[in-house]
């Protein structure tokens, strides 16, 4: 064997071992587990074929979890991408002064843990909390956010979008700053107002970045766990019982490892579909 190959093996062996053990092998392991009724403890494992999947498909809790996860995912993605782009446009208009200051300010929620954010927002949303008081002070009667099946998910969406806003703003700002100034000046000479310049210069040139941020948000938000765990625990009445929580409860509270693995495979499939759609869209975007 060549020295170079030997050195390469030494260099990559630890990385391959860890990623192999904890990422690649588990994918097959999960598929396997999902065809059993194992409880994670007993010595006997029964092969049950696809019955976990047929149970899933006929389970109201599963479809509810997919529905509320999608609700959260789409809500967070749309709000945070649009708000991030708008915010980046404003920062860009100030001519770069203070841009790095704003970047840091708006980015702080992004580096905060979901647990800490969840705890703080839970208190803001509580009936005696700051948000409810602000509502009352302007004459509105606030809902009991986290205890209300209708308002619990919007509350989570607000927090999720708040945590993602800075990321989308910073990436959008980088995109905006890479648009040559001349494009805007030419449009101005052609008589385009600020709104038309945004519509006909910014939007088309930012399309790939907007798409990227949207897909990234969708994939990320779909995996929500911490926030729902801390703020609502999945309630009220399953209104925030997202797919990750459903899997966690089945695996580690009810010890239905086989059934929970089937949920994991389904989540994997959904994320894969979003990713494949992303790839198609990007190829399309490049050709256009």
């Amino acid at each position, binding site marked *: 064997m*060549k*020295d*170079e190959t030997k*050195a*390469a*093996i030494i*260099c*990559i062996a*630890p*990385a391959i071992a*860890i*990623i192999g*053990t904890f*990422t690649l*092998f*588990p994918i097959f*392991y*999960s598929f396997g587990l999902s065809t059993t009724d194992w409880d994670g403890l007993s010595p006997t494992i029964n092969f049950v074929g696809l019955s976990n999947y047929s149970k899933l498909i006929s389970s109201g809790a599963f479809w509810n979890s997919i529905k509320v996860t999608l609700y959260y995912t789409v809500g967070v993605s749309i709000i945070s991408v649009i708000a991030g782009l708008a*915010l980046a446009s*404003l920062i860009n*208009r100030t001519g770069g002064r203070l841009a790095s200051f*704003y970047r*840091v*300010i708006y980015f*702080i*929620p992004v*580096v*905060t*843990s*979901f*647990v*800490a*954010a969840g*705890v*703080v927002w*839970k*208190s803001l949303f509580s009936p005696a909390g*700051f948000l409810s008081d602000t509502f009352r*002070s302007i004459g509105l009667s606030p809902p009991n956010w986290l205890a209300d099946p209708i308002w619990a998910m919007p509350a989570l969406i607000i927090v999720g979008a708040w945590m993602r*806003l800075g990321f989308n703003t*910073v990436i959008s700002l*980088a995109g905006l700053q890479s648009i040559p100034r001349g494009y805007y000046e030419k449009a101005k000479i052609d008589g385009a107002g600020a709104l038309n310049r945004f519509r006909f210069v910014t939007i088309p040139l930012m399309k790939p970045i907007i798409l*990227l*941020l949207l897909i*990234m948000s969708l*994939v*990320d938000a779909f*995996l929500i*766990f*911490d926030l729902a*765990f*801390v703020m609502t625990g999945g309630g009220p009445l399953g209104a925030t019982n997202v797919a990750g929580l459903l899997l*966690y409860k089945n*695996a580690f509270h009810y010890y239905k*490892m086989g059934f929970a*693995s089937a949920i*994991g495979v389904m*989540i*994997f499939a959904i*994320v894969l579909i979003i990713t494949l759609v992303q790839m198609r869209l990007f190829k399309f975007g490049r050709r256009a």
Partner: protein
Amino acid sequence: MNERDISQATVRNLIKRIAGIVRRTWVHIFLLTLGFVVLMPFLWMITTSLKPLELMRVPPHLIPTHFYWQNYAIALESAPFGRYYLNTIIVTIGIVVGQLFLSSLAGYAFARLRFPGRNILFLVLLSTLMIPIYITLIPSYLIIRGFGLVNTYLGLILPFLVSAFGIFLFRQYYIGFPKDLEDKALMDGCSRLQIWRHIFLPLSKPAFATLGIFAFLFAWNSFLWPLIVTTDPDMWTIQIGLAMFSGRYGTQWTYLMAGTTISIIPAIAIFIILQKYYIKHLALSARLG
């Protein structure tokens, strides 16, 4: 052109410039106000953590009149936050050091060494970035349990000791180095590993800073994995401790906010110190994610 015209032009220019400044000022005022709104939850957290407990019921003031630093002492007494901190620091150091070392090593091989299967292996590695944690969670837990590593630091660290993102980052960084960097060393009889150790490693500071902050924030903030591999409260990390504290002390917001403030400080401090490395590479992480 007479003097009148000139002065009129000057006035017009001046008005235009003032209008520009006024417009920009409005944008700044708006951005600052919005920034305040975005940071409001943190302000609320800090001020609540310094209020007396019984004042929580009446309409709250954002700024307290007296500072109750004892809330922090009470929070620290009612839950072993010191222990959680220690656990989190150990786990975070393990993950950060492991990721820096192993990603640099593997990134070097993928960037500078030729070996059979290199490209296909790298592609497989990159594709793991798209795999959601939920399909690997249960098997990873069973493997860690099989190794007897539940409730151990190693069990918390091992699955995250290396990341495909880190390997990619280092590969991109090393691939830009000039070719003759290692040629001379090879002629002098250095081994490949010596070249990595004595030439590439000392030049890696920016990449270390970048991956370091990503890995730090990941490790410090992670919740789901520590939640399932620790059942012993002595092994809880700060996020688990905080979540459990929140579950137990439900509405005693003053102490809860004190605990939350304590848990947040390191992440925000590291971010502010290393933010230029973080934000610069955000685009890279975006393209990968």
